[in-house]
């Protein structure tokens, strides 16, 4: 059996040495198939990441920078209607961090984290001639979703008392009952290829009105990068 295998292997090697070598092979008809998917074709989808700052004045709940920020990662779909008009939708994960200015408890660092899962719709107006490229555009739309996790994190580098000797005490409160469950916003984007400047106005409240008349800042402005 071993001998047979060796002979077969040698034969195959010889056969491959004898075989003619195809250096170029082109199927022209395959090349001419018009793709349906592409940045300026009938449909297109891509991932994106974004980072922005959140600002605004909401009464006593003032926040400070840096630290009051928006990070998001999402997946966007686009359907082309014409060279100038498209529409689409997206799903995204958004993490908002807020750093309150006022700290009555005297804790060194306090941070609110709000995690959102959202879906959105938008209308797009493209401008400028282009080939199969995203090009330059303006998007207007809205999104809504669920605040699925929130937390209040307090960090004290000079704890008054701890049950062990420690330089830092970090306390995390989760399941905050005063945080709303749902969120919804209006958005606008101006894009130049993969680089998009975005703005969002959060219409919904983060802090339930029953707990406070004031709320966290509503305006987000930042930059997204399309991963395409």
């Amino acid at each position: 059996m071993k001998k047979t295998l060796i002979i077969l292997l040698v034969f195959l090697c010889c056969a491959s040495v004898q075989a003619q070598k195809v250096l170029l092979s082109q199927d022209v008809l395959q090349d001419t198939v018009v793709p349906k998917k592409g940045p300026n074709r009938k449909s297109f989808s891509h991932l994106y990441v974004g980072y922005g700052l959140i600002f605004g004045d909401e009464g006593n709940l003032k926040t400070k920078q840096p630290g009051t920020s928006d990070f998001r990662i999402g997946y966007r779909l686009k359907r082309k209607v014409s060279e100038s008009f498209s529409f689409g939708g997206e799903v995204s994960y958004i993490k908002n961090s807020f750093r309150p200015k006022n700290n009555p408890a005297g804790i060194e660092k306090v941070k609110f984290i709000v995690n959102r899962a959202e879906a959105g719709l938008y209308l797009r107006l493209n401008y400028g001639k282009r080939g199969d490229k995203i090009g330059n555009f303006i998007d207007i739309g809205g999104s809504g979703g669920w605040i699925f996790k929130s937390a209040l994190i307090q960090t004290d580098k000079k704890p008054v008392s701890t049950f062990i000797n420690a330089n830092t005490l970090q306390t995390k409160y989760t399941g905050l009952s005063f945080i709303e469950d749902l969120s919804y916003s209006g958005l606008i984007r101006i894009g130049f290829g993969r680089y998009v400047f975005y703005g969002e106005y959060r219409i919904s409240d983060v802090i339930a009105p029953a707990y406070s008349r004031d709320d966290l800042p509503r305006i987000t402005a930042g930059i997204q990068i399309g991963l395409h």
Partner: protein
Amino acid sequence: MRSWIFCLLIVIAVSSEAQQKYWVFFKDKTDTVFDPYSYFDKKAIERRVRNNVPLYDYSDLPVNSNYIRHVEDLSDSVSAVSRWFNASVVYCTDDAIEEIKRLPFVLKAEPAGKLKKSVLGDDDDISAKSVRLLDYQTRVLGREDLKAKDLNGKGVRIAVLDAGFSDADENPAFDHLRAANRIIKTYDFINNREHVYDYADHGTMVLSCIGGIYKGKNIGLATEAEFLLARTEYNYREPYSEEEHWVEAAEWADKNGADIINSSLGYTSDRYFQSDLDGKTSLVSRAATMAARKGILVVNAAGNDGSGKWKKLGVPADADSILTVGGVDPYKAMHVDFSSYGPTADKRLKPNVVAPGIVMAAVNKKIGNTQGTSFASPLTAGFAACILQLHKEWDCQKLLHSIERSGRLYPYYDYAHGYGIPRAAYFLGDSAMNKPTFSFELSNDQITVKADTSILEKDESDLLYYHIRENSGYIHKYFVVQLTSSEPFNIDVSAYRNMTVALHFKGYTTEIELK
């Protein structure tokens, strides 16, 4: 004691006039005659042939005897002469060497034994491989045939449209153009001024591939042509206004008497879909066709998207009635990966021909290796200028179609090679017979091809080209196969009816109709 002082004084006096040894390098080897067959030993010729080293190489030409004589007159003696370095070694005083340095044909002089690394490095710093490449890029187009007939583009005016011509006003590769005032006009259509010797070195490299000379060696073929240089491209942006500038430059070239326009430029996915490559959609393609209608041969690079997502040629390479040039590997004469493919969206054959796409070109006041169909195009433009010099009565379409017919693959064609590399010999009475180089048999939906074993070289030159096309000429599939042995090669044609299979091997083409 006095005698010792006297001797010391004598020694000091003599040493101040002491002879030193110097290498004296000369600028050129003009007016020298060289016959390799009488100079080299038979075994030396065999070695060169075996190593693909050219027999006529600048470094083998003799040193100009007048130069040696002048230097000898000013020095004490000449101890050595070097062809390879175009230099002689002399013994002379410091004063004498200063006088020698001022001679018009002397490049530089350095003390022998203390040569700076750069003295030998700067002038001879291209490798043997680069020397071979520099030789090949024009030899493959028929440089020696053209030189034998003194065809060098003289009297032909070539417009070059590009992104800039940095240092082309100082690069030694264009000394001959500047000396004879053969850069007729320049214009920057972006800044609306005449200065173009800035912005980008792409145009400099392209210009050298049309008519540059490096140390007596051709970089391009049209070394005696006249030039119009136009800047139409931004270096770091791609606005649509570039196409408008192209049109302006083409009109300017027409007005200023251009016979040929070289455009190593192209626009693709940023602005167009592949369905737009019909020669009619883009402004610049229509302008290129108009230039052709006005009698200008437009030579355009096919593009470098062959290995990318776009794959196809760009605009204005899709224009009708222009010569679109693809790129080949310098030593295999086969399509190089990056060279864009045809055909056009309306199924016209492109590229028309191919030329070396990996070349040596003038850049940064020296010469360097570069690649792209940007350089295949000017090599072909220079070739076209030489042919136009021979046939001044030809209109540009006759010139274009003749260049196609001179292609090494003609009448075979495909959308990677067009009709192949043009041959100067075709225009100079080459009456090479199209003798069969293979036989074939069609049976049971299979074509069996058997190469003539007497011409098989068992290397990369044993290339069988074949395509399957419909009666209109539109190719459905095409292939290139290296016949690594004398075994028959089988082509399965069971899927094809009422089509034609064309085969080409080493200069012979045949066609088989499939019923």
